[in-house]
Structures are given as structure tokens and as C-alpha cells.
């Protein structure tokens, strides 16, 4: 079970065709005129360099008022999924997920979502065997569930063609900067963020913070007791109880620490960061 939600990257999801084909008219009241998400691939580099690396962004532009889901979608929904068909000499790695937003639905249901735009970053490695002067086309297929009041599954084929050159220029566009700014990193300075865990609760302490948000990963054997109330704090501390087996060494999730009006994002790995 766990694998399906966490390792949503590639291998697991071979040939998923769009569940949209499952829908027949009749029961659905109305059909939206256009799908609320459109997908595209963007590269941070203008070329692939033999033996070099680049980053691809899968960008989902989401219609206002709609949302799609993070790697742990929360209590409902499905994470965005992408499968690539990498050509010879190109290797595409696991996605990097920028931190989501919390969304509390009527009746007390908590989801982790993206609004406006969902951007997943994929590391790309070009083999030294690629020939300068050639062109490489990377094709992929993305699928997702997008919701407003109701939910619609969607999928789209995406592709990008890049030249192979001896050198490339990498433009760190606003899109990449904004996305990377929401990628969680290991806590470097424990005086700024302390993470600790006891038998039944996870504690975050971030001096000077005006808000802390916890975005947990999903575990079969571990559940957080009241993530709606306790997964968000307006102060320097956050404490959230859990039940079940604490997965030793596992990354429990990510936190957003708001300090001086800016957000910082950290990986919550109590063992590795010296806590617990």
C-alpha cells in the first residue's frame, strides 16, 4: 500500500490510462467545457550536455478554484503521477515535490494540495554517449485528480525536445526558483529548528517562528492523532500526537516554518537530525 502512495514516480505506474475514460454520460449532470488542468514540460537548461545534468519541470496549470494533490494527498484524492519514456542515453530520476498547502474540507477532512500551479521537478542525466548536434525528445504522460467541489480525473501526454550541445546555459527562471524554494532540506542549524519525537508525539521548536505547518507522509502503521488541529501552529512550537509504530529512520514528512514573513521548508527525520 505504502509504495503506491510514496513511490508514485514511475516504475509502479506503468501503463495507466486515464480513468476519465471510465465516465459515461448519463449520471454526470454536466460536462465542463475544458479540463481544469493543462500540463507541460519545461527544462531549466536550453540543451542537454553529454555527461551532464538538467532539471525538467512538469508544470500543471490549474484553473482558479481547483486543486490537485501532493505526494501524500491526505485523506482523499490521489497524488499527481508522471511516467516518462526516456530515450536512449537519458535517465530521469524521482520527482521532487514542493511542499503543498493544507486544505480542510467540510466535515473535517484534511488534504494536502496544490492550487494555481503544481510543479514537480525531475532530475535528468544525459549519458556521455549522446552526440552533440543531435536532438532528444523526452515524452511523458501525467495523470491527476483535480477537484473543486467535485473531482475530475485527467491525464495528458507531454513532451519536450532539447538539442544536445557541448555546453548549455541554465536559466534559473522564476518558475524553477519558486518551486525549489518550497523543496524541503535537512535541518542544518538545530538552534533554528529542533525536531524531537517521544513515544507518542512529534515536537517541532523553531525560535522566532510565527507559524509552523506539518505536512506528513503516509504510513500504514502510523497515524497522526489530530492533524487538522495540531498539524498547524501559529507560534514557535508544534506538537502533534501519533499512534502506532514510529518507522525508525523514516522521513515523517516536511515542515514549513514561517519566520520573518518568509517560509522555510525542512525534512522531518527525527533520527537523522539528532532529535528523539
Amino acid at each position: 500500500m505504502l509504495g503506491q502512495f510514496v513511490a508514485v514516480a514511475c516504475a509502479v505506474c506503468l501503463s495507466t490510462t486515464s480513468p476519465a475514460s471510465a465516465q459515461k454520460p448519463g449520471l454526470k449532470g454536466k460536462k465542463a467545457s475544458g479540463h481544469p488542468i493543462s500540463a507541460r514540460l519545461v527544462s531549466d537548461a536550453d540543451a542537454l550536455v553529454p555527461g551532464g545534468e538538467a532539471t525538467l519541470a512538469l508544470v500543471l496549470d490549474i484553473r482558479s478554484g481547483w486543486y490537485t494533490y501532493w505526494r501524500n494527498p491526505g485523506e482523499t484524492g490521489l497524488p499527481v503521477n508522471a511516467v516518462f519514456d526516456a530515450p536512449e542515453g537519458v535517465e530521469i530520476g524521482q520527482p521532487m515535490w514542493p511542499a503543498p498547502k493544507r486544505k480542510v474540507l467540510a466535515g473535517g477532512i484534511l488534504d494536502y494540495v496544490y492550487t494555481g500551479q503544481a510543479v514537480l521537478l525531475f532530475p535528468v542525466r544525459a549519458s556521455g554517449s549522446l552526440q552533440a548536434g543531435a536532438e532528444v525528445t523526452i515524452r511523458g504522460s501525467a495523470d491527476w485528480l483535480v477537484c473543486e467541489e467535485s473531482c475530475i480525473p485527467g491525464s495528458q501526454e507531454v513532451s519536450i525536445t532539447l538539442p544536445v550541445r557541448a555546453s548549455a546555459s541554465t536559466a534559473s527562471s522564476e518558475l524553477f526558483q519558486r518551486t525549489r524554494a518550497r523543496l524541503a532540506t535537512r535541518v542544518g542549524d538545530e538552534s533554528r529548528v529542533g525536531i524531537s519525537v517521544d513515544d507518542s508525539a512529534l515536537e517541532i521548536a523553531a525560535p522566532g517562528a510565527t507559524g509552523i505547518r506539518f505536512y506528513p507522509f503516509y504510513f500504514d502503521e502510523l497515524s497522526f492523532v489530530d492533524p487538522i488541529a495540531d498539524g498547524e501552529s501559529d507560534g514557535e512550537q508544534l506538537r502533534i500526537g501519533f499512534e502506532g509504530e514510529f518507522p525508525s529512520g523514516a522521513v515523517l514528512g516536511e515542515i514549513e516554518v514561517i519566520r520573518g514573513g518568509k517560509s522555510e521548508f525542512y525534512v522531518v527525520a527525527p533520527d537523522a537530525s539528532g532529535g528523539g
Partner: protein
Amino acid sequence: MRNLSKLVAGAVSAAAIAFGAAIVSAPVSAGGHEEHAEVGQKAPDFTLVDVNGKEHTLSDYTNDGKIVVLEWFNSGCPFVVRHYDKYTTMADTSAKYAGKDVQWIAINSGAPGKQGHGKDKEAIEAWNIEYPILIDESGKVGHMYGAKTTPHMYIIHKDGTLVYAGGIDNDPRDSMPYESKINYVAKALDEIIAGTPVSEAETRPYGCSVKYAK
């Protein structure tokens, strides 16, 4: 536990207060119902009316020697559509066990005006649904069971114990052939009927959110 744990929220907020977080006026909010479902415990009893106005009481079925399957339902949800239209998971599974003292019951906890509300009769006709769909527009029973998704499945044994809570199968993305999916409900029913413990008593449900009232 994970799907049901929301309901013990009140108790645990106390711990947060002890920790010194700026005292919240204990958000006992949505989860404040007294009875809540927990696997291994007695399932909370309820009475709801079906789309034809007929009353159904859980304990009437269990007292009558039935194993009861509860399926949270919303005909507008694509995940529900998947199991009624692309596949016939619900029809197949309910039919397979109908002669084995199993009563299948669908529940719609959607609020008036929300997706799927008031569409149950159409669904019964379109999908030839042969079991009752109960109306829970206040969401009371949905909250009692901690139902989050459509579908969200529960099984109550003849003695009234909740023995399964979770998904219909192990394939949220619909990435496997129908025959390869593990139908958790069928698996649990086989085990119950064989008199053995349910090996996977809690799984992660998947689907649309239940369209509760605010």
C-alpha cells in the same frame, strides 16, 4: 486507526494545551460525536431511511444473523463511477456474497446541494443497484464511522463488531487489470465466512471526499 482517529481529537487537544501552545479553545469541533467506530469494537448502531423512505437499522440486520457491508456512496464521484460502470466491483462483490448472509448497504452522506445528493434513485436505475442506498444528509452516521471517501468500506460481523474499515481494493490509480486487484472487502468476507480473523482489517481508503455539510 488512522481513518477513525479524528474522532478522538478532543482528548488529545488537552496534550497540546499542556505543552503550552497558546491555549486554543479546544477545537472539539466536527469530531465531537460520542460514539465512534473503531475496528475490533462494537460498531455504532444507527437507523437511516433509504431512497424509498424505508427505515434500516444496523442492529436489525446483525440480530438477524447478517454480516453487513457499508459502502459510502456518491454517484457523481469518479471513483464510485469506476466501480459501478468501468468495472462492476460493487455489483459483483455484493452478488457473490448475497447468498451467504451478507447484507450490502450503501450510504450517501452528501449534504443537500452537494455532488451526488438527490441522485441516488437515478444511480439505482442506471447501475441496477440491488441493495438499499441510505440517506445521511446530516452526515451524522458518516462522522460516526469516520467515513472520508467515496467509496469507503466497512464490514460489521454478525455479533456487531466492526471487523474491516478501508478501501474497496488496493488500486487507487486503477493501474492494474481488474482480476489482479486485491478486493479487500471480498478478501475480508471470505475470511469472516471461513471463521478466520480478517488479515487486513484496516486499509487506506481512496476516492473523493465525502461531501459533508459544513
